């Protein structure tokens, strides 16, 4: 080949790089490894990464069963190693799969249409807010404080330079958004209200009441859904204008936080302001049905700085996992799956309630619940780890006023014996029984304030002694 090109050495091809910037040494990275060594190295890392632990964590990342057909199909090279389907004639497989994905997401969310995917639920929510700004021509956003805290952080990152001021609305003792506060927060410059349902505490919001408040002032309602499995049994937010969903629950591995699958769904009238790729149906020269990427004039490769978003690569293969999962469970299975989640969680809330206080119980919940203990939840989690159980997510980092509360999650994979064991273990410390009696007589607000004071003392002393036991 060198002869054909007319060079004597490969270095001639790198002559355009000025000599002083050419690397004349080996990169200081690990030596080349054999496949067997690579597999061993990662298996070792896997052992150091919670392999074999039972987990009660949710909070935006859910452990559901993944039917084996998902990996069997997404590992077909024709899906795995193809590019974005710009050359439609040679990519009908990917395009038809996206079209089916868009259809199923629209059906499940109660929206008219959906896009081909966004990076994840957090960036999807941020993009939805920017979309609402474009649709309404208004500039501020009202955000529920019980939206996933990391989603809110991402939104802040995006919104800051778009000059979108945000107003936060807090939650009541039911864990739901405070409607009175919301009513006051929404004004004539409000482009949208962003809520999450089920919210970060697992509580289902009264979406219709919220929509009424938003729409009355001409604002859009964006509903973020972090736990897609809820859509099997919980009424979808049909009155919303945009649904920003994280579909990880549908067949996507937890994978330490990614890749996941965000998706936006909306009404037809807003489609030209929606970011992300869209597959559409059309015909070929002979009238045969086929699919293409469409409405590309919204996108960066055509519009450059005037595009609806800078998004280019999305999550196609992950969306395919979601697609296959939705197809496997389908119309009946998704409901039965959701019912099992509901049953396990209702049982767990009952069991935990014997030894601690379960907060926000006056409103319906899906598969997460908040448990308040007298003992620091980090200490509880540390004890549980000894039994190979990963406890709930301590909430004080995100909600200092919730003190010793932690967010627990049950899915269809959570067994009764896991629940019984964990419920027993959270009671092992002194005083929790006493506290649960005591706090049941108080209003939730007072009790949270009290335990929050207690916990701050405790966590201070813990920090010095056992920093590695802090869950994050």
């Amino acid at each position, binding site marked *: 080949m060198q002869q054909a090109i007319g060079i004597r050495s490969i270095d001639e091809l790198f002559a355009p790089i000025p000599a002083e910037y050419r690397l004349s040494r080996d990169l200081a990275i690990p030596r080349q490894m054999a496949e067997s060594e690579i597999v061993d190295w990662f298996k070792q890392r896997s052992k150091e990464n919670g392999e074999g632990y039972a987990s009660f964590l949710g909070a935006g990342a859910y452990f559901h069963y993944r039917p084996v057909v998902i990996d069997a199909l997404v590992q077909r090279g024709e899906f795995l190693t193809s590019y974005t389907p710009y050359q439609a*004639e040679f990519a009908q497989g990917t395009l038809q799969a996206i079209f089916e994905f868009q259809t199923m997401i629209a059906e499940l969310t109660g929206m008219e249409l959906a896009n081909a995917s966004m990076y994840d639920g957090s960036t999807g929510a941020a993009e939805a807010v920017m979309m609402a700004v474009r649709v309404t021509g208004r500039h501020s956003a009202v955000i529920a404080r019980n939206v996933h805290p990391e989603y809110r952080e991402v939104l802040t990152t995006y919104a800051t330079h778009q000059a979108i001021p945000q107003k936060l609305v807090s939650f009541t003792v039911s864990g739901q958004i405070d409607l009175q506060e919301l009513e006051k927060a929404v004004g004539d410059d409000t482009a949208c209200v962003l809520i999450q349902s089920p919210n970060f505490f697992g509580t289902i919001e009264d979406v219709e009441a919220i929509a009424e408040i938003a729409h009355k002032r001409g604002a859009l309602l964006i509903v973020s859904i972090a736990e897609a499995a809820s859509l099997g049994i919980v009424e979808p937010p049909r009155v919303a204008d945009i649904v920003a969903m994280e579909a990880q629950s549908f067949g996507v591995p937890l994978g330490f936080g990614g890749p996941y699958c965000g998706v936006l769904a909306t009404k037809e009238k807003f489609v030209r302001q929606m970011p992300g790729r869209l597959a559409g149906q059309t015909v070929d020269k002979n009238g045969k049905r086929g699919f293409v990427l469409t409405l590309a004039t919204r996108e960066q490769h055509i519009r450059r700085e005037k595009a609806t978003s800078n998004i280019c690569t999305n999550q196609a293969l992950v969306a395919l996992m979601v697609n296959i999962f939705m197809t496997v469970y389908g119309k009946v299975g998704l409901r039965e799956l959701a019912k099992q989640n509901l049953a396990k969680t209702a049982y767990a809330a009952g069991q935990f309630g014997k030894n601690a206080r379960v907060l926000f119980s006056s409103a319906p919940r899906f598969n997460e619940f908040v448990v308040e203990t007298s003992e620091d939840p980090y200490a509880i989690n540390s004890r549980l780890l000894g039994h190979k159980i990963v406890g709930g997510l301590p909430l004080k980092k995100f909600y200092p006023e919730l003190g010793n509360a932690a967010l627990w999650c049950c899915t269809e994979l959570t067994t009764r014996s896991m629940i019984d064991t964990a419920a027993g273990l959270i009671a092992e410390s002194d005083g929790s029984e006493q506290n649960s009696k005591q706090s049941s007589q108080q209003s939730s607000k007072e009790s949270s304030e009290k335990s929050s004071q207690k916990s701050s003392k405790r966590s201070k002393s813990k920090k010095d002694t056992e920093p590695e036991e802090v869950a994050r």
Partner: protein
Amino acid sequence: MTTKHVTRKATRHINQNEGLIFEKSSPGKAAWKLPPLDVPEVDTAKLLGKQERKDLGNMPEVSEIEIIRHFTRLSTWNYAIDLGMYPLGSCTMKYNPRVNEFVARVEGLANGHPYQAEKISQGALRIMQTLSECLLEITGMDAITLQPAAGAQGELTGLLMVRAYHESKGNARKKILIPDSAHGTNPATAATVGYAVENLKSNSRGMVDVAALAAQMNEDVAALMVTNPNTLGVFEQEIHKIADLMHEKGGLLYMDGANMNALVGKTRPGDFGVDVMHLNLHKTFSTPHGGGGPGSGPVAVKKILAPFLPTPIVITKPDGTLGFEYNRPQSVGRVRAFYGNFGMFVRALAYIFANGPDGLRQTTEDAVLNANYIRKGLEGTFDLPYDTPSMHEVVFSDKLQSKKGVRTMDLAKRLIDYGFHPYTTAFPLIVPGALMIEPTESEPKEELDLFIEAMKSIAEEVEEDPQYVLDAPHNTRISRLDETAAARKPVLRWKPEGQPA
């Protein structure tokens, strides 16, 4: 078809028809089975009240064999790297090693929860730290974030840091300079971060016009976003001068690392003056494109920008264990939930291990060798608008063929009949009718020869029977699709017959 032009690479073959999954659905079919419930059943109406969903609409009901056949049939309608060369310029469609897929599915990595205690996350943290160290060595930069979900989000993260840096000096500045050869995400990103975009003209050799840059550079410019090698596959030979020009006026140099496959092990952006850059793990580091994602877009920076990296970053704690650091007051914040597309980190690191220092250097050399072999093979047959030396990709134009009314997209469609995925068409914008070809290191000489033969054959067809090329593709399941109709009256989802649109 003219019998003279036989395609050696592909032969027509029966493949299966397949409707939409909804068209196969009928009540009672199922592909799922849940275990018996080990806790009491619940009364859903009582628990959920008016929030209970009664109906899942048109969700499908199908059996497992139907699902396997459905998606397998669809898959056979796709082209893929696994089937042959995928010469999309600037996309780096290289082989996606299967060991990557295997290790990403090892239990503790696939099932690790992002919020599990650091004590039982040491494996994942070590993977992140090791990958970070490797990428820093490869780029010659000082600090890195793995959080961005893809290249475009990497750009966003990088420009947010540029902005935060300038703000810390008291002036955020107003604009970003972007060469006219740049990828569309560059200006779109600058707009997202609240910067105005100013175009920078390329010179006659396809490179940044340094004199024009000197004239345009002033204290309003926050950064220059440059792709190197640029989208013509040309190395910016005056890159250090460009960096100096930026730095003299207090600006920063951003490098779009989309074309890093031309540089790994041969030169380092950190050494030639780049302040901030993103990498595309799904290009340079072999993680699969998957039909359009997931990507992963780590951003590497020089020390001056390190305080602004997104939160959290991986640190080694005093006791030697790894952890996340959240207390970073100057950080630009979070660009996505959790820590990024971790599964892609695993795959990229497996690729780096499988190559080592020798392998990575050879990868780069082979990628550049392959591109130059194609250039040599097609020079004369296709117009080469810039004769500047090519690195990992080569850009021709359709100037000669367009005389017969055949444009780059038509040539691309005909290439499909020859069993190849098209090259990148009509980009970069500075070349009218561009054919942008990037073979990557993965292609053996036999495949490159087939490609050259196919392209030459198409060029002959253009001379003999241009209409035949204009009507291509001829051998696919479907002919050219009506994209105008698709956009004018969008049909973006299936609906059952009789249901109002």
